């Protein structure tokens, strides 16, 4: 892979280094025991939803608009049955 920039940087009093040539907003950082550090760019995933989930929400909102929803649920009861008090 071709190198596009190479530099020496010094960390500041707060253990930060500046990457003047950084192209991306987010990076995944891996630190190794020999001291070398790797940064891999990350891009936020485009938010998606399943068509089935969208259909689920569409029909729920149709009912919601008419004030139709279930009775209140009790999560404590569910957790007690699952042994998670």
């Amino acid at each position, binding site marked *: 892979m071709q190198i596009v920039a190479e530099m020496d940087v010094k960390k500041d009093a707060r253990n930060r280094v500046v990457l003047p040539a950084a192209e991306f907003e987010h990076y995944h950082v891996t630190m190794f025991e020999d001291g070398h550090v790797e940064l891999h760019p990350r891009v936020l995933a485009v*938010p*998606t939803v*399943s068509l*089935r*989930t969208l259909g689920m929400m*569409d029909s729920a909102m149709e009912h919601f608009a008419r004030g139709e929803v*279930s009775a209140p*649920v009790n999560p404590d009861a569910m957790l007690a049955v699952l042994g*998670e008090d």
Partner: protein
Amino acid sequence: MPFEVRMGIPEMRDLWNRLEAGARQGTLTAKEKTLAKKFAKAVKHLQANPFHPGLSSHEIDDLTKRYGQKVFESYLENNTPGAGRLFWVYGPERGQISMIGLEPHPEDAKSGAYKRIRLSELPKTKKEEAEERAAKEAAKSKGAAHLGTRSPAKRPRGKR
């Protein structure tokens, strides 16, 4: 003041009831048990504080536009959207929250294959389609009425 959490009809309500019944009867699979625990814990957090840090609740603008009221998404597991996402709205009454969707859809989680859509490219709702059809019909009948008042032999001035 805690919120009252209710389920959207029909699928979220049916899912909650199925998980609760399965938990009582001891018939849940391991995956369903995990989902039930996470779901119940998330609902418990929502009751106390919909913006509990563990939920990472945030508004989803595309869904807010679609339904005409604020729709929020919360994670089933702390900072892990991949573990499952809950969609909810405030209401229908004050002090209530209604769960309207779960991603991945329980059927998708079973079958493994499902069509996905970007939130920024949601298809029209039935209401939007009906409004569009009505607008087209109105435009058609307006045009037809206008033609009906003119004699076909005569053309209006200035028009070819």
